[in-house]
């Protein structure tokens, strides 16, 4: 059996309030668009990118490095899309950040 494609990359949490409710929500919604399995790892703790609770329990503050890993047909595209959210700090303005807490 052919092994499934795997795609990986490191990302950094760039928004000032860390990976809180709203970015976690966006991340889950983005992950739902793909068929592949997507895992996010922080210091050995691995969670499912489709579980908002899992993401929140990572407690990822601003500046935290995370490893994104996707396994499946569309792994490559998934990593690009999710990585883009991290790179753009989830498109949060400071205004929204404050309001979201």
């Amino acid at each position: 059996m052919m092994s499934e494609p795997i795609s990986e990359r490191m990302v950094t949490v760039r928004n000032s309030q860390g990976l809180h409710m709203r970015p976690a929500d966006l991340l889950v919604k983005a992950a739902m668009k793909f068929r592949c399995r997507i895992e996010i790892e922080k210091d050995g703790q691995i969670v499912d990118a489709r579980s908002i609770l899992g993401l929140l329990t990572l407690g990822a503050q601003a500046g935290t490095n995370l490893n994104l890993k996707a396994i499946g047909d569309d792994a490559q595209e998934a990593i690009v899309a999710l990585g883009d959210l991290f790179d753009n700090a989830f498109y949060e303005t400071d205004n929204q950040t404050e309001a979201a807490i």
Partner: protein
Amino acid sequence: MQEFQGFPVSPGVSIAQALLLDREGYQITRSRVSTAERSSEAERLDRAFVVASEQFAKRTEEASEKQLGDLQGIFSAQQQLLLDPRLREEMRQLILRRSFSAQLAASQVLNGYAQAFRRMGGTFLAERVGDIRDIERALLEQLGGAPTTSLANLQSPVILFSHDLTPSETANLDKKLVLGFCTEAGGPGGHTAIVARGMEIPAVVGVGSFSQQIRGGMEVILDGYRGRVILEPDAQTKENYLRRGRDRQSFAISLDALRDLPAVTQDKTHIELLANIEFPSEVATAMSRGAGGIGLYRTEFLYLGRKEDPSEEQQYEAYCEVLKAVDHGQVIIRTLDLGADKLSARQTNESEANPFLGLRSIRYCLRNPSLFRIQLRAMLRASVEGDLRIMFPMIATLNELRSARLLVRSVMDDLREEGYAVRDDVKIGMMVEVPAAVMMLDHFVREVDFISIGTNDLTQYTLAVDRGNEAVADLYQAVDPSVLRLISQSVKVADQAEIATSVCGEMSSHPAYALLLIGLGVRTLSAPPSALPQLKKAIRSVSLSQCQAIAERALRLETAHQVHTAVHDSFAALLPDMVQQI
């Protein structure tokens, strides 16, 4: 197992589920299901998730329509939490494998996450917990949880946890279902404590913040003797408490045997035991516990927790009810002691910076003669039904006493003119609870028939410590040598003038302190009904000279702590078998 320590303000031990009274939450009404119900209960959970997530979806949509981007983000994220398969799966497992009710499963799982978020600290702390609480509320609402704003929906016995309870909230508790309560705020001398004792509901107050640790539905032990609250006790602890409870019960039965015997010391000094009550319904209990009469009827409780002040007729009926139930003993009715922590419907003390030093008690009554007259009319009309005595609270100056007496005289004249029968010889007395009254007592005793020393307020006013404030509660010590000296001086002055003296503060309800008071010359003690049997037992076990030795030693000491230790040591030496029980 987790423990809290607070002030033990009402004795007794209860073991029951916790009910957290938070003003906007939902309370678990059922915690377990039978094995047969497991799968239907899991389906109920699924349906609750569907409805709750629809609610959040609707909120998200509304926020979006109103272009409230930030709110939309929050609601959307909360909906995402509800959609998280992991959350629902964890709850389902608790239902399907361990017979949890859907309510308890939802609450337990969400609380687990709330605590995990709390441990992370930083910005994740408080706000995540609030989001989780919102979800818990939404689910419990769907699952038939009862809004905690109302205690009316209680179906099974609970121990109540609340930030604070007012005296009137306490008075309205259903004793059959509320087996005890615990508050974050409050101190040992507050009125909530007094009401709890009167109702014989075990209570612990002033434990500090517990909202982080306690959940509704948790099993708890509330130890009103030691001021301890134990969450989720282990089997050993629970067994110990149950055993001690059985011991206490057999001790109580042994006290019952003393019921019809007089309260005399071994050398035949007679001590009169009277009861403190808040409601007419307590008289029956008081008499069955061996009270010789009522030493303090706190009438302000007629006024608390109702929308309108009681009418003259309603008060008259209450006083008659007490007099009839007492049969032929004295009934000391204290006039309205409203103000500070006891406010009636039409009162407010918001403008007062120091309500305990403000317009309360007799001061309030003298300032509102129309209200005061109604009460005096009701009392004087009832006076023909028994040995009713009138007592004014918080008298600080002779002028206050004279004004109050004048008002009594004027009301009496009115009533006679209206054709009512009024007794001529109604005895009139005063509370001695302000140091000024002790200083001037040689003058006061010429104008009253009796005095009653109120140790609660006397302690508060002597030591300048707010008795309801937990921050200074350690200073509130009725056995402080300064307070003992004032009591001793009052008893001497009253004895010389040959007028009756009683002590009606909480101090007289503790057997060890009661012996100290007897040693100081007190011969009448008024205490909550629940305390009377053990007081009698203690009195019958000692001699007057032993009490005097306790008092002489206490008066020579320098600090409240020394007095406390000395009095308890003497008590332990005299009554070793009672120490275990109180």
